[in-house]
């Protein structure tokens, strides 16, 4: 970093540079705006396709041209979209809540704990995160079948929680890393137990971390296809990914209806992201992973 050593040299040269950079800034602003606009448009083409097809009358309808919401009305009336939506919401909310409850204390340990055991736990998380679901799917199915957890939403929820566990724990740990331990130390001096310190001090201040974790686990549970298709059989238990797929298969060229269901599947995660994105932070994972 040789440049830093030369910081002593400040003169009217620097002033001139500041001026030109400000001018450049304004012109540059519009260039950058156009650039990013183009990039965003290209990036969103597939999303636009889905919206376009969903609002266009399908080949089997009698409406001509223009945009219409009739695909949605027909899809809500004749298919199980509402049921799939319900199931997906239930499973996802269950996953989010249980994940946060399990990952928060685990993240605390990862953040505050320093021992070989904790490093071992961190490594365990890391190894399990690297496993592809396919290795576990069949043995897991048989285990769950014996426990009666197959073909119902509870079993699927448990699997999702475990799938998201590693990253959720890292996210919580990362956030907790940014809470100075001095606050807990103050609480301990006042006679609080470790657990109380955790709950009163750390948890109370971890809302952004909790939200980050919640958003991440939401996506894991909402979008999953492979686990759902192996574990869920009855149409009453279908989550949206399964419902959407089965709908595709049964209505081969009816893009309008198919995309209408796809839009329904897209809305909740997009909504959550739009509303809560300022809380969502993955940056701390790096620190938490490397800081052990």
């Amino acid at each position: 970093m040789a440049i830093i050593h030369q910081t002593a040299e400040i003169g009217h040269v620097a002033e001139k540079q500041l001026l030109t950079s400000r001018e450049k800034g304004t012109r540059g602003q519009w260039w950058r705006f156009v650039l990013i606009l183009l990039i965003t448009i290209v990036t969103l083409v597939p999303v636009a396709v889905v919206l376009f097809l969903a609002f266009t009358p399908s080949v089997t309808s009698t409406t001509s041209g223009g945009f219409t919401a009739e695909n949605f009305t027909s899809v809500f009336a004749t298919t199980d979209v509402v049921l799939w939506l319900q199931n997906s919401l239930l499973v996802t909310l269950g996953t989010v809540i249980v994940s946060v409850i399990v990952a928060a204390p685990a993240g605390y340990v990862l953040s505050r704990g320093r021992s070989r055991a904790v490093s071992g736990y961190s490594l365990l998380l890391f190894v399990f995160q690297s496993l592809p679901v396919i290795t576990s799917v069949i043995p897991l199915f048989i285990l769950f079948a014996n426990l009666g957890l197959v073909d119902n939403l509870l079993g699927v929820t448990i699997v999702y929680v475990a799938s998201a566990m590693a990253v959720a724990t890292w996210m919580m740990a990362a956030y907790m890393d940014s809470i100075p331990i001095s606050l807990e130390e103050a609480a301990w001096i006042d006679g609080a137990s470790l657990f109380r310190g955790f709950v009163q001090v750390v948890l109370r201040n971890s809302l952004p971390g909790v939200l980050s974790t919640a958003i991440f686990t939401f996506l894991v549970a909402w979008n999953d296809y492979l686990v759902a298709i192996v574990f869920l059989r009855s149409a009453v238990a279908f989550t949206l990914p399964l419902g959407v797929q089965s709908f595709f298969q049964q209505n081969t060229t009816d893009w309008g209806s198919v995309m209408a269901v796809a839009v329904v599947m897209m809305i909740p995660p997009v909504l959550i992201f739009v509303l809560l994105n300022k809380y969502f932070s993955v940056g701390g994972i790096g620190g938490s992973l490397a800081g052990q």
Partner: protein
Amino acid sequence: MTTTTAPSTRGKPAVAGQRRRRFKSGTSTLFFLVLPSIVLLLLIHGFPLIQAFIQSLHNGTLVDPGPFVGLQNYIDNLTSATFWKAAGFTVVFTLVGVFGSWAVGLALALLLRTRIPAGGIFKVLLLLPWVVPIVVSSTAINWLVATSSSPIPMLFANLGLAPPLFLADPTWAKILVCVFKVWISFPFMMMMSSAALASVDETVYEAARMDGATSQQQLRWITLPMIARSTYISWILMTIFCVNDFPTIFLVTGGGPIDATNTLVVLAYRTVFQNQQVGPGVSIAFMMTVVLVFISTLLYRQIRKAAI
């Protein structure tokens, strides 16, 4: 426990000279805090792992557990052309996926740090590819490129160029799948880069500007080194995501055409669920996992050492 009012060093990247605090007491409480997580992990990941390993030592089908064959499945994999072809594409897919998404993500993160009208809206819109369910986006891709009357081939035709067979030609299918993966992954990289960039001290840039450093020099000598650790971590995470990624490829090409877009995880799935050969399929998944874990752990330890 020590009493101190000195500011904590937790959370900040470790700088030479400052020790990290160590926390030793209350181990039993810590144990109980982490217990639910461990139980869940062992039950859902650990137990099936052992079962799966046993399955890989047998030559069973979905219906029939099959005879014990020892390591024969693993040996067959090492001598199978299909296996190595899939391994090769896994490497290509991962490299393009990781570095492609990182480059795009970083570029966008840098761009978004400057003042742009409606920058906040762009930030959210650019997250959409990661948020949109893959079942939905893969269908959109099929609609866009599948037949000669689909929009993108028609666009090519209207421009007077011969429309490529995006899904039918092996090379184009590979390109399509890699581009799709970059599309899905760049938002994650963008978020990680953003967070890392935000933690870099502004004053360093100011000093560099005073010295007449160009943007390119600033990028190369200040930005990149200062976000290095987060960058390496994001590479490792994205590598894991890419190697294990099944739906992105399977929903678009099914592993074809002519096995061109088979990665190891797609091949494992097809062997288990299409050929119904559970033993051989699971052995492929295992081999892939072992290599992945080995490489990742190595890199991960390197980063730990480098950081301190």
